[in-house]
């Protein structure tokens, strides 16, 4: 395009040679040149931080990134969302037009933002928080992030980082190395270790296990 | 003495705008004698005022003078003091400027306990705009905007300042000029926020609607009503009714002053920064 920059497809800079669960798996969004992501939840869940960390990791991967956020006046409990555009070209218009990926950590976010997702997009949500998942015909992952976080670290506050690990495992949007750096750099001081544990657990999920109803659809126990 | 005082006056700006019998000139004179006595240098002395009769004093003083907007002398002075801690910064304000529109800044300056001296000229009335009541007017007083008598209670500004955290609180009157001169000296020397209420007569706007009416009578009334802190301590509240308690009402030299606390913090933060860099350097 105009600036004569060399496009670098998403994930390509430092793509993991393998994911923990599959040698072939590179991620559903790996290699794209332009991806719009929306994280939604309620205030206090760390949704904005999820966007910031993903954006930081993508920047470390040498992509052009814009992260915006929108939240209600309340610090706790109100709506909260964080949008990230990852591109091989500098980004002009900073808002999402049709998201490629929606990550919802609350019922309200799922119901409210499903409309912004493309028909061929990816919808990932917290299995326990989104009790009535909205109708969506694309690829869906329902994962009990909160429960997993509680089990792994004893703290529900690490849910966002765990989810981010899972999102990366599913999509391949950023390299694992950059994501780990971004998490360490962005989480509150003193929580690096516990968040890293959550991250590793998230990265370690097997996407196939949770796709389109996943474990629950097959009557399996909710976690492995 | 008179000649020495002249170095602090912009004589080319005189005569002043104040009316015959006004108390502002008396206090301004006391202020000049006080800073002369203290040996303040003109270079490092800044006078900040707001809007109103009292605030016009700044224009006559041959110092660094800042005539600001209505009610905002204290925050401007705060900016000056924080940027130049070596300056002696004195705020001249009135009961309208300092206690009405600028009331919020007054209480926060007290709370911050920043090393400023605030001399508030209290004549209970808006003189410059033609005799409207101020928040220090006694109930029942008459003003153009209180044609049926003042309905609202008045502020006791010294009690307000003390409660808000000022560490030097004093009151004087135009009738007790030696006393207020001494008070101003103490206030300027005090390391913290010094609040000084100077009770002054306004015969033109207050006197014409209230009693006593004449300047001399007003001064005489002030003198009669004045009672020193030590004498007041021996009287009951009933006996103190209608009295003007003068002198240093409150002083606390222990409480931390804002600017110096800030400077200490900066030194501490910079030290920590240096230590961190050294440690990083050693680690490499």
């Amino acid at each position, binding site marked *: 395009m105009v600036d004569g920059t060399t496009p670098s497809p998403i994930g390509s800079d430092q793509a993991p040679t393998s994911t923990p669960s599959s040698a072939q798996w590179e991620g559903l969004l790996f290699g794209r040149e332009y991806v719009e992501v929306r994280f939604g939840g309620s205030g206090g869940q760390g949704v904005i931080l999820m966007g910031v960390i993903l954006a930081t990791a993508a920047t470390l991967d040498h992509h052009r990134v814009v992260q915006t956020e929108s939240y209600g006046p309340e610090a706790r409990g109100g709506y909260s969302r964080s949008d990230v555009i990852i591109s091989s070209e500098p980004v002009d218009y*900073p808002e999402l037009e049709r998201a490629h990926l929606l990550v919802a950590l609350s019922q309200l976010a799922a119901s409210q933002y499903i409309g912004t997702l493309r028909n061929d997009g990816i919808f990932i949500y917290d299995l326990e928080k989104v009790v009535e998942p909205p109708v969506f015909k694309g690829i869906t992952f329902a994962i009990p992030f909160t429960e997993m976080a509680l089990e792994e670290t004893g703290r529900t506050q690490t849910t966002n980082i765990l989810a981010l690990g899972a999102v990366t495992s599913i999509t391949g949007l950023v390299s694992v190395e950059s994501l780990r750096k971004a998490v360490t750099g962005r989480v509150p001081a003193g929580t690096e270790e516990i968040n890293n544990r959550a991250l590793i657990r998230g990265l370690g999920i097997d996407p196939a296990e949770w796709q389109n109803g996943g474990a629950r659809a097959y009557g399996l126990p909710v976690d492995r | 003495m008179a000649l020495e005082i002249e170095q602090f006056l912009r004589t080319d700006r005189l005569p002043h705008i104040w009316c015959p019998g006004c108390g502002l000139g008396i206090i301004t004179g006391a202020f000049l004698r006080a800073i002369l006595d203290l040996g303040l240098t003109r270079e490092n002395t800044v006078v900040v005022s707001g809007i109103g009769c009292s605030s016009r004093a700044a224009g006559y003083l041959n110092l660094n003078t800042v005539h600001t907007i209505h009610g905002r002398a204290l925050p401007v002075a705060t900016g000056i003091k924080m940027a130049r801690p070596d300056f002696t910064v004195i705020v001249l304000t009135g009961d309208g400027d300092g206690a009405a529109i600028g009331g919020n800044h007054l209480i926060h300056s007290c709370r911050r306990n920043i090393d400023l001296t605030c001399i508030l000229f209290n004549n209970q009335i808006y003189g410059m705009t033609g005799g409207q009541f101020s928040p220090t007017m006694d109930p029942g007083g008459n003003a153009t905007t209180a044609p049926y008598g003042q309905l609202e209670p008045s502020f006791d500004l010294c009690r307000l300042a003390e409660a808000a955290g000022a560490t030097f609180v004093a009151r004087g009157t135009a009738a007790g000029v030696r006393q207020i001169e001494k008070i101003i000296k103490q206030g300027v020397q005090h390391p913290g926020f010094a609040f000084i209420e100077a009770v002054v007569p306004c015969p033109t706007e207050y006197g014409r609607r209230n009693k006593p009416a004449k300047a001399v009578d007003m001064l005489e009334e002030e003198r009669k009503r004045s009672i020193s802190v030590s004498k007041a301590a021996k009287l009951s509240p009933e006996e103190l009714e209608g009295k003007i308690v003068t002198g240093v009402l409150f002083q606390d030299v222990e409480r931390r002053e804002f600017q110096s606390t*800030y400077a200490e913090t900066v030194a501490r933060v910079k030290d920590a920064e240096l230590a961190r860099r050294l440690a990083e350097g050693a680690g490499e």
Partner: protein
Amino acid sequence: MESWHGHLLKERVDQSSLLIQGNRACVLGALDAGVRFYAGYPITPSSEIMEAMAVELPRIGGVFVQMEDEIASICACIGASLTGEVAMTATSGPGFSLMQEALGYAIMVQAPLVVVDVMRSGPSTGRPTAPSQADVMQARWGTHGDHPAIVLAASNVADMYRLTMAAVRFALRFRTPVTLLADQVVGQMRESFSEELLGRYRLTSGDFDFTPGYLHPDLAREVHLPHVLGSGEYPHVTGLFHDETGFPTNDPEKTDKFLRELYNKVAHHRDELCLYDVKNEGRGRVCIVAYGSCARSARAAWRLADQEGLSVEVLHLYTLFPLPVEIVQKVARRVEFMIIPELNLGQYAHEVRKMAEQWTTVIGIGKTDGTLITPREILDRIAELVGKYESV
């Protein structure tokens, strides 16, 4: 990149990457330009500026004070400015309204300072967390009286850095307050911050040296009375009309002369003050004139139009006031339509109309629902005007 901000980004703001928030980039720009005094009052969506200042200024020996309100904040900045400090404050619409009287005082006493207004939608409390460009006219005419105004508008994170520097430079050179307008999106967004981004958004006529610590004190020739407290000159500073001595005057001739000089010291330097960027110069029947986050929509619309075989020119304004008369009129002479997308009901479109309607048709696209104008919305309006398929 290392040359002018790399070390600051790494050391002081963001250990992990060069992804930085607009409000924080503003702080970097301010510190690099020599701002060492900040007094403010927190207000969404500008508070990150204040919070970063609270961390950074003590570390470099500067002064940070949280005041009791916005009036006190700007007044403290004026006080510091009068001692020769480079002072700054930041706020949003309601706080900016409170500052207006003191802003007029700063203009009158020629005290340089920078005010950053991260706009929210209004009037009143409005929507604190939604973007808006509703303070354009407040930035120009918010304080009473005829007065000069320098108003810049940031459209991205890089702008927040370099336009803050430009604001400091203009404030010192013209000895007047300078307002930098941003909005919730630009202030709170995080963006990869690179030289590439700066190159992409050029500042035409802005010959800046972005070196940390630079000051630009050479005064415009119209400025008089750059008094500094403690200089030994014993200045008298007053918001009353004053003559060349600094003391009040009621002389009609002197009053008029003073006001005209005050006004003209900015108006006469439009060539230096008006920063802009023209894209797709001289091609197309339509020019989108845009500023702030809408300039991003405009650029995206231009690219989208390009893909659809429609040629559109973009005039991206970084300086809103003084009015960029010359460039607007130059472009107006060659296009049939000027489209001004803005997040208000047409505040700047009126200004463009005044400048350009002699030569072209000026059409505003106003949006006030708290969302950005999309490139498609702009393009649809253009297509309506010129007939999309006709021009292919």
